[in-house]
């Protein structure tokens, strides 16, 4: 199969402040400006679609793929409802969504399209699409983050996306919506006093950003479990965005990375980063975690052996 064409990737935060209150804090406005830069780059590219993987869209029944041609609603965030509402109307690439269901099924994943009026698109996807593609100039595809999925399943999902891109001969910009460190302050704060929750979170975030700046995406993917243990609140089983991003863009370190902004969002680490495929690999690591092409499902460990 012909190789997939991913023009570049964007890693950006899910919090609504850059959309709803960019002037409340200098850092929020820098993040907003970084989103604007990405928007311009998307406009200047000849991308056919945006593919969004949002950590704030959890699924249980396999992998859900948004396929309503024009989903429309007024979204309000669970925590930051007081910052205002987020009316949206997006344009989805339904053909691509259908193709992705097929390609993911052929790699052993359970997946389905979602096309219901009023379906609650998550805060992260709404923020990203409103800021990166405000006029719906190109269609989008949003995929969920299965709450039980771990490394194998997430990597296979990324590869399924590459399959679908190759099959449809489409050029994509991929967007990962995720914080770096995701521990927020547990009280309400004056936004002018926002900062990263702890020096440890800050140090880890900056280390991750060094890898991004060096284009070391596969190295980050391999560091996912460590990142999860160090700076991720244990809401889900793993830190999956780097797995998904590497599998979707290509599992190597041949990227030009650019960190456009790194700021605190109610204590969490918010960064806007771009990765553009290039030549010349960076890094000195080789890994022993097996690459995986096909997902075989649960191993049914709990129901084996003695009870």
């Amino acid at each position, binding site marked *: 199969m012909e190789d997939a064409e991913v023009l570049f990737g964007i890693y950006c935060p899910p919090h609504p402040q850059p959309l709803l209150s960019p002037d409340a804090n200098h850092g929020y406005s820098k993040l907003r400006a970084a989103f604007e830069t990405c928007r311009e780059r998307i406009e200047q590219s000849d991308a056919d679609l945006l593919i969004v993987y949002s950590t704030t*869209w*959890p*699924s*249980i*029944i*396999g992998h859900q793929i948004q396929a309503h041609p024009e989903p429309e609603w*007024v*979204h*309000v965030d*669970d*925590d930051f*409802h*007081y910052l*205002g*509402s987020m009316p949206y109307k997006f344009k989805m690439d339904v053909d691509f969504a259908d193709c992705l269901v097929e390609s993911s099924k052929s790699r052993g994943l*359970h997946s389905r399209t*979602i096309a*219901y*009026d*009023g*379906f*609650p698109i*998550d805060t992260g996807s709404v923020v990203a699409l409103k800021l990166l593609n405000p006029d719906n100039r190109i269609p989008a595809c949003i995929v969920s983050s*299965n709450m*039980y999925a771990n490394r194998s399943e997430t990597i296979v999902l990324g590869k399924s996306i590459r399959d679908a891109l190759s099959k449809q001969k489409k050029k994509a910009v991929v967007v990962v919506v995720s914080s770096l460190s995701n*521990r*927020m*302050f*547990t*009280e*309400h704060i004056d936004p002018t006093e926002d900062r990263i929750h702890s020096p440890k979170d800050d140090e880890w975030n900056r280390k991750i950003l060094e890898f991004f700046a060096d284009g070391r995406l596969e190295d980050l993917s391999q560091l996912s479990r460590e990142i999860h243990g160090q700076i991720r*609140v*244990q*809401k889900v089983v793993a830190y999956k965005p780097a797995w998904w991003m590497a599998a979707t863009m290509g599992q190597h370190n041949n990227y030009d990375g650019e960190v456009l902004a790194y700021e605190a969002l*109610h204590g969490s680490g918010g960064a806007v980063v771009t990765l553009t495929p290039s030549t010349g690999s960076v890094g000195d690591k080789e890994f022993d975690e097996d690459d995986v092409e096909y997902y075989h499902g*649960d191993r049914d460990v*709990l*129901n084996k052996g003695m*009870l």
Partner: protein
Amino acid sequence: MEACPTSRGFVSFLTNEVWYFSERFSLDFFISDNMPKGEIVLGCLAPHPPHVVYAENPEQNEPVSEGGWETLRWGYNRLARKLKSIDYDALVIFTPHWQTYIGTHFLGLPEFKSKSVDPVFPNIFRYNYDIKVDVDLAEKMREKASEHGIITKMMRNQDFRVDYGTITSCHMLNPDWDKPIVTISSNRNAHYYSAEVMNEQAAALGRACAEAIEESGKKVVMISSHSLSHRHFVTESPLPEDMSKEHIYNHSQYVWDMKLVDLMREGKMRELIDILPEFTEQTIAETEAGGLTWMMAAMGFPEYSAEIYGYQSVIGTGNLVAAWDPNSVTREIVL
């Protein structure tokens, strides 16, 4: 005023520790003589898999089913009939599907009318709702919680969509929707700290809510909206209500669930809440949100038997409908 004597201990207004010993939800010392004191007239454990609403085929829900999950639904129907026989002013519900990380939030507008589409099971739950909120009671609870050091926020954005946990549990308990509700968000202490911290903070919130109810003079039904064991199957049959496919995810989940049911029957709610962190971890239970702890603390950790209305798995998770009736005259042995 540093502390007040009660019949069972001392209540401190400066710290929670002494207050914690109170094993009663009647806080009569706060009430002036001429005001009728409010009370909790029933506590309900009301799981919210949207499947049960889907199976009931109410006119508000768009998808149409051929039924399913009768053991749970018939139990719910019976509890709903009991509720019809009880005099109460409002339903107060603690929901895992309004997840907040910055404090505990309360619905703070009198009416919410919209459509709720389940983000996980949109194929079976697209429900048109019109909900009335008891804002006075919500504000009173917020005020009391805040006084006791809990971070709080009123939710006053009219575009806010009420979560499907609230809608499912309230629909099954009161399909006529003829009583106002208060929805309380679940602050995710279990994610940020541990299940033990969740237990402590949810209990503190429960005590504050009980105090607010007493001062409000209202009769309130409390609802803890969640499953017990909570491991889901990640695939779904073509016909979701195909009961030949439904069973618990694995046997250890079932054994743990039954352990909890036994403690409820025996009236050992303090013990149950004490082992809840272990249960929550072992069965990735939805008790992680804090609802059961909140309700039991508000009701003073009942030492009487719970009414058991039904237990059934839904897409692998363990679901129990149960109630705690403080009135020994109307309390029943149901199952």
